[in-house]
C-alpha cells in the first residue's frame, strides 16, 4: 500500500524534540487576528443590548423617552465622552512612542491614558449615584444601566489591561519592533474598541 510506505519513510526521519514550526499561511499575526475576531463577538454582545434598547424604546414604548420624570445628564456625559475619546489619542501616542524607541513618551502617554480611563469610570459611577433612578425603575432604567453598565465593565477590563501595560513599561519591557510591543498594541486595540463603543452608546442613549 502506497500510504504505508509513506508513513514508514516518515518514521525513520531524524528526531525532533517538539513540534515542527507551523507554516505561516497568512501574514497577519495570530494574536492580533484572534483579538479582532473576539472584538466582533464583543460588538455583537453590545448588539444584543442595543436590540433590546430598540424594542424597549421604539417598539413598546409610547410616551416620552426618557419617561417622566427622569432626565439624563447629557452635558456631564458629553464631557465624559470627550475624556474617553482623548484617551484614544493618548494611547496612540504611546504606541507611536514605543515604535520610535521613545520610551519616555510611551510611558508618559500610557500613564495619561490610564488616568483618563479611570476618570471616565469615576465620573460614570458618580453619574449613577446622582442620576435619580435605578435599574429597577421601569424598562428604561434597566436598559440604561444595561448598556452603560456593559460598557463600564469593558472599561474596567480595559483598565486592568492598561495597568499591566503600565507596569511592564516601568519594568522596561517592549521595544520598537512589531513583535516586541504586541503587549502594548493589543490592549490598545481593545481600548480603541471600548472608546468607539462608548461613542455609539452615548449617541444612542443620550443624544437620540
Amino acid at each position: 500500500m502506497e500510504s504505508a510506505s509513506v508513513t514508514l519513510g516518515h518514521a525513520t526521519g531524524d528526531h525532533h524534540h517538539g513540534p515542527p514550526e507551523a507554516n505561516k499561511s497568512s501574514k497577519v499575526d495570530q494574536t492580533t487576528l484572534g483579538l479582532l475576531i473576539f472584538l466582533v463577538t464583543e460588538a455583537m454582545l453590545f448588539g444584543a443590548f442595543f436590540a433590546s434598547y430598540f424594542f424597549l424604546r421604539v417598539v413598546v414604548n409610547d410616551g416620552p423617552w426618557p419617561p417622566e420624570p427622569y432626565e439624563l445628564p447629557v452635558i456631564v456625559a458629553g464631557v465624559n465622552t470627550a475624556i474617553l475619546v482623548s484617551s484614544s489619542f493618548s494611547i496612540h501616542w504611546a504606541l507611536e512612542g514605543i515604535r520610535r524607541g521613545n520610551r519616555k513618551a510611551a510611558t508618559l502617554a500610557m500613564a495619561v491614558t490610564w488616568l483618563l480611563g479611570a476618570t471616565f469610570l469615576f465620573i460614570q459611577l458618580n453619574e449613577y449615584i446622582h442620576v435619580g433612578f435605578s435599574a429597577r425603575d421601569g424598562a428604561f432604567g434597566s436598559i440604561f444601566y444595561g448598556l452603560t453598565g456593559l460598557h463600564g465593565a469593558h472599561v474596567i477590563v480595559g483598565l486592568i489591561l492598561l495597568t499591566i501595560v503600565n507596569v511592564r513599561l516601568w519594568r522596561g519591557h517592549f521595544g520598537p519592533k512589531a513583535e516586541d510591543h504586541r503587549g502594548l498594541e493589543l490592549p490598545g486595540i481593545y481600548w480603541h474598541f471600548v472608546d468607539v463603543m462608548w461613542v455609539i452608546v452615548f449617541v444612542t442613549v443620550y443624544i437620540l
Partner: protein
Amino acid sequence: MPVALKQAGWWRALYGLVIGAAFGYGLVVALRAASGLPLIQTEQTGYPQLVVALITGPLGFLWGIGCFDYWLRWIAGGPTVPDDHADHGAKNWKDYFKVNTDHKVIGIQYMVLTFFFFLVGGLAAMGVRAELAQPGTQIVDPNTYNGLFSTHAAFMIFVFIIPMFAGIANYVLPLMIGAPDMAFPRLNALSFWLLPCAGALLMASYFAPGGTFDAGWTGYAPLSTGAPIGQSFFNLAVQFAGASSIATAINFLVTIVTMRAPGMNFWRMPLLVWANLSTSLLVVAATPFIAGVQFMVLFDRVLNTNFFEAAMGGDVISYQHIFWFYSHPAVYIMMLPGFGIISEVISTHARKPVFGYRLMALALIGIVVLSYSVWAHHMFVSGMSSWLRVPMMITTLLIAVPTGIKIFSWLGTLFKGKIHLQSTAMLFSLGFIFTFVIGGISGVMLGMVPLDIHVSDTYFVVAHIHFVLFGGSVFTIFAGLYHWFPKITGRMYDERLGRVHFWMTLAGMLGTFIPMHWIGLEGMPRRVADYSAEFAAWNLEITIASAILGLAQLVFVYNVVVSWKYGPKASANPWRANTIEWLVSSPPPVFNFDEIPRVVGGPYEFGVPGARHAILAGDDKATVEQPKPATVGSVGSST
C-alpha cells in the same frame, strides 16, 4: 501553602470550587449586610448568593484544575516556563483528566465527555417517552415532566451536539490542514474545561429548590423570569457553554487562516475545514446574542430589572427576537460541521471526487449569510409585528436553496460511485441524506406562514427538529466518529456491530419520529405531559420505537469500548482517503508531523491517476504528477 494547592489538579480543583463558591456566597452576603438587607434572600427567582456562587465556584474549579496557571504567571511577571511540551500527548488514561494542550488529547476529551452528556440527555428523553406511553399522567407529575424535556434538549443542544462537533474538528482539523496544533493551545484547553462546568450546572439544577428548569431549551420570558431558581442554573450553564464555543471558534478561525500547510490555498481545503470555517463565523457573531439575552433574564430574575416585565415597560417578545437571532444560526451551527463530515465520508467511501466542490464551499458561505435573516420564522404566532412574516417566509424558503445544492452535490458524488455499503460510516452518511431531506422538507413546510400557524407548538415541529437534529446532526456525528475511529484510536472497530447499530438507529429513528408528523398535523401539542386519548396508539408505538433507538446506542458504546481495547490495529490509511490526516500513522505522532507536509492538489482527486493531495517532507519516493497545474505559484512539482 499545602502541596495540593501548588500543583494543578483535581485536589486543587476541589479547593478552588469550594473556595470560589464560598467567596461568591460570602461576597453577596457581605454586600447585603452593608446595604442593610436581610443576609439571605430566598425568593424563588432570587437567591443572589447562590447565583454568584454558581459563577465563582466554576471559576475556582478552572483555576484549580490549572487552566489559568500559565496566564497568571505571565501577568504576575513571573518567569514563563519555556514550553517543554511535557503536557503534549497522553501517556495513559489519567492524562485525559488533566489540563492538556494537545489538540488530539483535547479532541478525545471533548468527544468522550460530550458523548456522556448525550447519554444523560438520552435518559431524560426515555423518561419523557415513558410518561407519554399512555394518556394521563402515570410516571411523573407535569412539573417533573416539564423539567425532563427541558433538560433533555438543553443537554443535547448545548453540551452534546455543538461541542461534539467542536471535539471532532479539534482532533482532525489541525491534521487536515497540516498544522502541528491549534493556534492557541491553552485557550483550547480552557474551552474544553468550560464544558464540564456547563454540564455540571445543568445536572446540579435537579437538586435546586423548586426543581430543575422547566421553561424548555428556549427559556422564553416571562416563563423563565418567574421560574424557580433552577432556571438560573440554565442561564449560567448556557454562558459557560457559549464561552466555550466562542473561544473554540476564534481558535478555529485563526488556525485555518494562519496555519495551513504550504500549497493549501482556500480552494484546496477539505470541505470539513470549510464547514468549520463557516460554523465558526456563525458562532462568533451569533452566540453573543444568547449570552446577552440570558444575562437579561438573569438580571430580571436576580436584580429585579424589567427587561421583560410588560407592566413596567418591558418587552416580552424582544426575548424571542434576540434569542432566535442566535438560535436560528445555532441550528446551522449544529448542522454545517456535519455537512463537512458527510462530504469527507461520502467521497472517500464512494471513491469519487466531491461533485461541485467549489459550489459546496460557496453554499456553506451562503447559508452563513442567509441564516442571519430568517430568525422570525420561529415567531409567526408570537404576536410580533405582522409585516415581518412574509419577508421572513421568503428568506426561509431561500435558505433551502444552498441546502438543496449540498444535497444534490452529495447525490452527484454518489452517482456511479463505488459505494462501500459495508462501511458503517457510509451507511450513516446515506441514512443522513435520506432523513435530512425529510427534515428539510418539513422545514420548508414550517417556513410557510399558513401551515406554520396551523402546526405551531405541535408534534409536527418536534418531528421536524428531530429529523434535522437526530437524522441530521447525530447521524453525521456517528458517521464522523466511525470514519475517524481508526485514526483516533489506532484500532479498527467492528463493522458488523456498526451495521447493527446503524440499522437499529435508523429503524428506531423512523419509528419514533415519522408518526409525530401525523399526530402533530392532527393537533397533538408539544411540551404537555398529557394528551387526548385519540393519540394513544401512535404514542405507544413511538415509545416502543424510542426504546429501540435508546438500546441501539448501547451497541455503539459496547463496540467503541471493546474495539478501542481489543480491535485489530489500524493502518495509517485504512479507507485509502486522500486528506492529510491519513498520511500520518494511526494514532498520529505526538506532534503530528516531523515536518509540515506540502499540499500539491485538491483533496478529493479519487480515481485521477497519479493525483496526490499532499506529500510529507522526506517522502522522495512519491512521484508527484499533477493532473492540473497548481494554482499556487510557489508549489513546484520537483522536490
